[in-house]
């Protein structure tokens, strides 16, 4: 029966070229209509500058004639640096806290309540408090990124440990593994797929939180700061260009970097992480 229904494809599978055609056509139609509407004056070309003008402005901003020169590249680099620093911190601390909660009684007793008390606080609500502590500084935005990413990582590490059956530990114990060896050879590889899932979700939240934090913390540079700053000068082209860059960068990070990581581990091992 399972095989029988399996042979009935729901719809015919999209052919590889179709997979490429669809996004090109659907985005092409969207941007094309926008372009025409802006050029013919159907919508205000000041408020909604035609996509061609937005791309042109982005291109200039990425070159030596930008204001400042290579401005958008600088913004991208700085945003990525903050993301990397915050997520790296979250990865290390989150894994440690997750292991403590999952493996030790005291860790569960101490951290679980504190984390459940902190989790409902909207990440961005920390920004003004952090601004007081650190001032307008990279540390403010990095900390926001850290907070945004760490909950998902902790949660998934704990889930990963809970998902492991007791028999896995018994196998290790019967081989005479020490506590450290069990951690090294059994627990860490066992939770890796969950850790990657947590990382994926965490990076997604972190990227969004970072952009918002850069707007709020009015730091210098960074994509979030850039679009907020451009609003003060009513520089619509830069705002749209910035938004587009944020979205494409976010996609690249999620699909490209994390996607590749998933392919090499979760998919290869055939592990199904329920989320």
């Amino acid at each position: 029966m399972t095989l029988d229904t399996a042979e009935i494809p729901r719809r015919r599978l999209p052919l590889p070229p179709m997979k490429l055609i669809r996004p090109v056509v659907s985005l092409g139609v969207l941007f094309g209509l926008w372009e025409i509407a802006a050029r013919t004056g159907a919508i205000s070309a000041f408020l909604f500058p035609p996509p061609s003008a937005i791309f042109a402005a982005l291109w200039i901003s990425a070159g030596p004639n930008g204001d400042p020169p290579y401005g958008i590249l600088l913004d991208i680099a700085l945003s990525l640096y903050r993301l990397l620093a915050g997520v790296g911190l979250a990865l290390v601390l989150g894994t440690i806290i997750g292991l403590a909660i999952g493996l030790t009684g005291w860790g569960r007793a101490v951290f679980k309540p504190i984390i459940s008390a902190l989790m409902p606080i909207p990440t961005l609500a920390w920004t003004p408090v952090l601004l007081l502590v650190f001032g307008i500084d990279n540390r403010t935005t990095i900390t926001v990124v850290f907070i945004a990413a760490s909950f998902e990582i902790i949660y998934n590490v704990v889930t990963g440990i809970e998902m492991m059956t007791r028999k896995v530990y018994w196998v290790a114990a019967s081989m005479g593994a020490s506590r450290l060896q069990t951690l090294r050879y059994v627990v860490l590889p066992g939770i890796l797929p969950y850790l990657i899932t947590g990382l994926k979700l965490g990076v997604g939240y972190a990227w969004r939180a970072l952009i918002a934090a850069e707007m709020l913390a009015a730091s210098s540079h960074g994509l979030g700061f850039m679009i907020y700053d451009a609003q003060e000068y009513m520089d619509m082209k830069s705002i749209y260009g910035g938004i587009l860059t944020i979205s494409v960068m976010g996609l690249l990070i999620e699909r490209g970097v994390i996607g590749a990581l998933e392919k090499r581990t979760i998919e290869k091992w055939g592990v199904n992480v329920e989320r």
Partner: protein
Amino acid sequence: MPIGFQILDRALRVIRFLLPILGLLLVWELAVRTGLAQAGILPAPSTILARAVELLGLTGERAVLFGHILASLRRALVAFALAVAVGVPLGFLLGLSEEAQLWVSPILSLMLPLPAVAWTPILLVLFGPGDLTIVIVCFLGAVFPVLYSTMQGVRACGRQPVWVVRSMGGSGLDVLRRVLIPSSLPALITGFKLGMAHSWRTLVAAEMLAALTSGLGYMIFAARSYMDVSTMFVGVVCLAAIGMLIEHVLFGTLEHVTIHRWYARDAQTGGRQ
């Protein structure tokens, strides 16, 4: 177990949950009192509590806190309602028609990595600061979880339940009313919960950027310019508490009367048979 023990057991569990939190607060309080932490940046919990009492109007001052909370709740709820009105029909459409979903998904995946707050600069130019800008930003934050959950719920239904109703001579309306809506209801409720949570979480940032006179986000950001740190912390705690109330009390109850009853055994797996 006798009832007396049950109460005792539950009380013990609550205490064990609260103990680490109280411990943390105590360490914090002591750190401030002994001068380890700067009171100007990190006020003691007791100071924050005193400030909360003032803001609530319990000491005879003007009860400003309620006004901010009401303004925030109103915006978040309006945005959420809009998100449901747009996200649910669109979710049903994209869930039912794979073709439509394939064409729209490139645009959606381009929108998804954007924080809703990123639209604020454009909205500020278009509409200026105020309720409209804030509500639209929150709507953008809430609509995607609603849309995606609806889509998944409709998809997960599968063909066979539809076939059962069809084989009884049921019409398209019967399929919608008796299969698609009830079977996607758990996913819808999850979507509503996520949508409301996102609306609420987006609200703070939106209010910080675009509120003129009221709202918890505004209160926090305004307090920052007076270095009134206690008020900032009161705001943060309010945001968390209200968010938790909405999520657990409101949607928790909703989930309880639907999902948990239907899927008594397989509540965790989402309950497809």
